[in-house]
């Protein structure tokens, strides 16, 4: 059972990492980054490192994801202002 979980987890990690880097859509990249962080936390938990899993879920996926989403909103706002001014 746990082997099947690991066999699903590893391709999911690699796939989300690759899609996060390769996708041209910024919003999708940020969401994929958060997904990657959560999967990574699962991977740390499977590697019997719950301390790192907690930190990864809270900082890697949560706070960094919130910061990236915020930056995305700021970028979009600025772009909107520029288009209004032009």
């Amino acid at each position, binding site marked *: 059972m746990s082997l099947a979980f690991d066999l699903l987890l590893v391709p999911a990690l690699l796939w989300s990492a690759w899609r996060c880097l390769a996708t041209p859509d910024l919003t999708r990249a940020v969401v994929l980054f958060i997904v990657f962080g959560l999967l990574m936390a699962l991977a740390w938990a499977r590697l019997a490192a*719950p*301390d790192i899993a*907690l*930190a990864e879920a*809270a*900082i890697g996926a*949560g*706070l960094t994801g*919130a*910061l990236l989403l*915020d930056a995305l909103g*700021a970028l979009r706002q600025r772009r909107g202002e520029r288009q209004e001014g032009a």
Partner: protein
Amino acid sequence: MKALVTIAGLALAAALIAALLQLPPAAVQLPAQVAANMAQSGVEHPVTAVLLNFRGYDTLLEVAVLLLALLTLLTLSGGAAPAPDGGADALLRGVARLALPLIVLTAGYLLWAGAHRPGGAFQAGAVLAAGAVLLQLAGLLPAWVGPQRLLRLGLVLGFLVFLGVAATLLGGGALLRYPPERAGGLILLIEAGLTLSLGLILAGLFLFVTGRRS
């Protein structure tokens, strides 16, 4: 060109994996050394023992680096008026109100659990910071523009407590060598200070950025 880069990347990955497989086993058995000294560390969880006792010096500098990152952020351009309220809806506000007590409780539990199971100051601080970010996103907490005196004190409190303990113990001949019978209490004191300060620092990395957006 793309195929060339792909082949080069795959070759590098194969070379790295081959090199990794040829590594000899580690010469120093760190887990055994940690297990042998657990009795005098003052805590029962090996990760906390390493972070705050055996390698406390590293953690002290890590906290200093985080504080430095926040100070650097504060020196960047800014001081603009807080961004207008995003008009968060009532549902988000309600959920944030419900979640906040649980978040604070979880942070307190993680801090206390650090002594004997996974947890500790960094995780508890991150959870606290997530709570502050949630409040800000829900429009219940205004973004920070400049740190007031109380906030400044909170930001440096953890580092100062850590440094104070280290300086007091310097009289014993070594930085951060706790006397075994008081190690547990000292570690809890340091971790409590660190939880508050790390929470504020991590939250500040988000809230100051939102507050400074022009």
